[in-house]
């Protein structure tokens, strides 16, 4: 399974949840398959999906899922100790680990070589770290949602992309509808 197939398999589980989605193809794929106000698409700033998602989770009570990539976590490695030390049980970090920088042409990352993001996350102090295969992503995500515990999921999958249109929605619209939906659910 490649990333787009993993995201598709997650839709029945995450469609009703607040999702902060990584820049580039992951956001474009989610936007194409299941656009809705609960999705926050990153149009810039590689690496910050986990930080933005943690900020949202710490600020309010709804569950928040950050969809990130192995390359983006490597870009913002400092995020894992911050997550570990600021426990938000309404937060799930889902790392699509395809061992490559998918949006830029599938260049290999170190996570696909000697570096295990699962072990790094544990070493940083994250208490619930689950590594799974792509086929199990949906079940593992459901279990994480049901657990009410902050969870880091490292989902190993194959490298590869599908053709998707870019997101032309205005960033302020993306942000505004996300905030309004979040405020409504918290009301």
């Amino acid at each position: 399974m490649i990333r787009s197939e993993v995201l598709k398999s997650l839709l029945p589980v995450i469609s009703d949840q607040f999702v902060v989605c990584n820049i580039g193809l992951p956001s474009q794929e989610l936007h194409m398959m299941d656009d809705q106000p609960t999705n926050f698409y990153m149009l810039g700033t590689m690496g910050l999906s986990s930080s933005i998602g943690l900020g949202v989770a710490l600020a309010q009570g709804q569950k928040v899922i950050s969809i990130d990539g192995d390359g983006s976590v490597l870009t913002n490695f400092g995020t894992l100790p911050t997550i570990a030390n600021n426990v938000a049980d309404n937060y799930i970090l889902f790392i699509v680990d395809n061992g490559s920088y998918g949006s830029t042409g599938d260049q290999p990352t170190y996570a696909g070589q000697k570096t295990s993001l699962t072990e790094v996350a544990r070493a940083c102090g994250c208490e619930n770290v689950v590594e799974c295969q792509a086929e199990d992503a949906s079940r593992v995500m459901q279990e994480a949602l049901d657990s009410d515990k902050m969870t880091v999921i490292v989902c190993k999958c194959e490298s590869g992309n599908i053709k998707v249109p870019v997101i032309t929605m205005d960033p302020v619209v993306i942000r505004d509808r996300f905030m309004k939906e979040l405020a409504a659910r918290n009301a």
Partner: protein
Amino acid sequence: MSVNDKIVSDFVNNQIEFVTTVPCKQLAGVIDQVDANDSIYHIPSNKEDEGIGLCAGAFMGGKRSAIIMQNTAIGVTINTLVTLTQYYRMPLPMLISYRGELREPVACQAEMAVHTKALLNQLNIPTYHFHKEEDVEELDAILKYTFMCNKPVAILTDASFWGGY
């Protein structure tokens, strides 16, 4: 009231409840005060762009946020300021130690100091420079301005403001 007390009290009075920090020697006192304040969730960041991401998230989650960092951070946060904070139109007060100004003992700090205002100017970031202790009286108005216009706003605080290095 000390400068540190005044800054944190202005933060609290402007409903800032989420503050991220990356330390600087000049900011040690205010960071301690932020950490000690029960109305503020203090979340130290490992890098300033990470901190700006956290602040963006907290803002979307309904909490006013702010970042406290050194001016060297301008060098590592430009992309984040432009493609996240400005692009999505989010407010972000940035309390910045302005290292490399008068009374600076570390020569290397002057290298970034000479670029600090030029970079902020290039980014169209409203910038205020606290040089004397009484300049802190403007902080409340600057914070209100920031949340009025939904922009990142820089408050540069030099060694003279802090009473020396």
